[in-house]
């Protein structure tokens, strides 16, 4: 029931926040209340939640709670930072709509529902914030069209694969469990796998479909990037992974050529995404291409169809999305604090703002990983299982590119301060100067009347410090999720058996 409640809170609340953003106070109030409620409801999702709804089962699980709670908390904290120093909260409503549809999509076994809902949520999260960009003109409309097409294309490819899988020529009907794999069916299985992986490539912005992701990172407010390229795309990949486990895996077809092709594309994303993140100078592109590189590693989960590899893919997807949400929060606050976007102008940022430096170190720790962390083990397993030796070592080495591109940013931050950094307000808390004149001599009602004004002034003066604190919290959450993963949620957990509706579990828990 809690999953449905979350959807019932987040979708209408997000829509209301989006529609009322023209009146910022009202829109922000609705968005803030909805975000807090979403966090509270997400925390109550449990493995016992299973509600029959319109012919299927909406079911919760421990893994889904981890995803929903992290996603909701990131939206709330990023929304706070965005309100304080970013676009003023324009991303809050669309991100909440994406959360509601995404969690609902991950709670049902039917991949068709998942693809449709995640595409709808992704569109809302990506296009919504464009409406409130100040001075949005024809260039913004063009960007919107360029975001619309790949998102819809990915969803339609996913729906087409699901339609094939359920048709008379799909594996459920055409496969003969006692006669091995028919060559024609093997070809069809390979094509089905490639179609779904193509959908994932487009949706996640992996190379060669990375152009739209790069444009998104530079065009929309930074706070909208995790909602679109991160959480929504990860949900899409999770649904695709579940579909592959249920539709392709049971046929036990070898599919060597298809797996090889997927491994090549994934390796290209890992290598070139990391390289692009190293070469680019502006923070938004570093963020965008680091996500492209993560998408490449996630694609390796489709290169071998094995339960342990699929689970590693899930751990990687959720952990990295959480970590990159922290990086997005850092980019948002850093860019707003120093009012520059290029690394060459950010010399000394870490010396100027220790809070941001701490945030960045936490993000870097999560992105690079340490032995014992779920994402570290997942990355090793994915490269080892999907890429032939000795090339797996090259891909694994390239996957450590965050050491270079994040290390470069940190080194620049420890350098002598640039003029832009020196002239910025910084993120140090300011505790003086908010008390109204005549405070001690004033009457109690007068003091009471002055408190809200002083409070607002204190928030305004400390907005960069508060935003940096939000970013630090997002980074810490990301590090925690990257360390713990989904907590081994890939156990076989068939749902709906008693209800007789479906024999599959949700994409979070694995399809087998």
């Amino acid at each position: 029931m809690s999953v449905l409640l979350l959807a019932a809170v987040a979708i209408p609340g997000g829509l209301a926040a989006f529609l009322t953003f023209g009146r910022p106070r009202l829109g922000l109030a609705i968005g803030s209340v909805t975000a807090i409620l979403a966090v509270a409801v997400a925390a109550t999702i449990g493995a016992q939640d299973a509600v029959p709804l319109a012919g299927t089962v909406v079911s919760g699980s421990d893994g889904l709670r981890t995803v929903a709670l992290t996603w909701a908390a990131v939206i709330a904290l990023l929304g706070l930072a965005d309100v304080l120093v970013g676009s003023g909260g324009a991303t809050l409503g669309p991100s909440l709509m994406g959360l509601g549809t995404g969690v609902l999509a991950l709670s049902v076994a039917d991949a068709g529902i998942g693809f449709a809902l995640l595409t709808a949520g992704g569109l809302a999260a990506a296009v919504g914030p464009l409406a409130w960009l100040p001075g949005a003109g024809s260039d913004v409309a063009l960007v919107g069209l360029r975001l619309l097409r790949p998102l819809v294309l990915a969803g339609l490819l996913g729906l087409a694969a699901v339609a094939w899988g359920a048709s008379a020529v799909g594996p459920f009907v055409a496969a003969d469990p006692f006669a091995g794999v028919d060559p024609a069916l093997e070809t069809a299985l390979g094509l089905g796998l490639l179609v779904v992986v193509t959908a994932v490539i487009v949706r996640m912005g992996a190379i060669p479909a990375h152009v739209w992701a790069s444009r998104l990172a530079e065009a929309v407010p930074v706070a909208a990037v995790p909602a679109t390229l991160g959480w929504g795309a990860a949900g899409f990949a999770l649904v695709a992974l579940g579909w592959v486990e249920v539709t392709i895996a049971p046929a036990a077809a070898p599919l060597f050529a298809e797996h090889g092709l997927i491994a090549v594309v994934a390796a290209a994303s890992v290598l070139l995404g990391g390289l692009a993140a190293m070469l680019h100078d502006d923070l938004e592109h570093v963020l965008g291409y680091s996500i492209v590189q993560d998408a490449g590693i996630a694609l390796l989960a489709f290169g071998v169809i094995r339960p342990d590899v699929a689970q590693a893919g899930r751990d990687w997807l959720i952990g990295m999305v959480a970590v990159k949400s922290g990086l997005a929060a850092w980019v948002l606050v850093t860019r707003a604090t120093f009012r520059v976007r290029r690394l060459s102008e950010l010399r000394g940022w870490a010396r100027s703002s220790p809070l941001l430096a701490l945030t960045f170190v936490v993000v870097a720790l999560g992105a690079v990983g340490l032995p014992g962390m779920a994402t570290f083990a997942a990355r090793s397993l994915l490269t080892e299982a999907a890429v032939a030796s000795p090339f797996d070592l090259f891909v694994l080495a390239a996957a450590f590119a965050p050491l270079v591109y994040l290390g470069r940013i940190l080194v620049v931050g420890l350098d002598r301060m640039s003029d832009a950094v020196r002239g910025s307000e910084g993120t140090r808390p300011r505790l003086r100067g908010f008390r109204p004149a005549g405070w001690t001599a004033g009457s109690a009602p007068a003091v009471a009347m002055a408190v809200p004004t002083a409070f607002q002034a204190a928030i305004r003066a400390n907005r960069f410090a508060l935003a940096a604190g939000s970013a630090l919290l997002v980074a810490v959450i990301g590090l925690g999720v990257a360390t713990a993963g989904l907590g081994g949620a890939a156990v076989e957990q068939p749902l709906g058996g008693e209800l007789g509706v479906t024999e599959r579990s949700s994409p979070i828990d694995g399809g087998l």
Partner: protein
Amino acid sequence: MNPALAGVALAVTAGAVIAASSREARAALVGLALVLGLGPFLTDPLPGAAILGARVVTGILVVYLLWAVAARSEARGLGSRLGWPAESVIAAGVAIAGVAMAAGLASVTPGAPLPGPATSPLDALTPSALALAAGLASLVVGLAPACFGGRALRSAVGLLLVVQGLVLARTGLAGPPGALEQLGIDGLVLTVGTSAALIAHIERRSTPEGERTDDRATDAGRSGRGDAGPGRPDPSSASATGR
């Protein structure tokens, strides 16, 4: 053959051709309304009244939103360069291919009755065949505007034709979607239409009346544009109290 379903399939296909080829916004949106409003009826058995109502109302709402954006000024960039006769021929050819595909699928379905020797060609027009035929026709005529439409309204029409076409093709291939999947599709259509209407609104309020409007001009402008994104909000203007 069910004559009512055949009529619906014909109306959906004709609507797709009109939507993709008309240069008038009003006619294009009427065609789109036919596709989105009648498409949900192209299944056997019909979904429940609530689901059917939701799908039809969503289709009308989407068309209304696009109409609200396009109504106050001349819609630009609409219309196919091939013209409606060519689009009709393409749609008819694809629809015939869809019927043939459906017949092929029916023959490989386990437990399907074998066709008798005296079957009429019209017997091939089963509900699945009609859905697949209309769906593929809508999908194919919508591809060009969806992929290459330089203007938001034309892209919106194309994308909605492709989405509805794929949903119909899915119905023809794998049977009618379940109720929750119908609602998911409903949400997808609504979001695609709303997003496109939003983009069309942004485009319309920023385009001077005298600007060149054909797709070629738009594409040329697009290719000449650098990688720089649109203006991001100035962080310095943001404050704790709003934008």
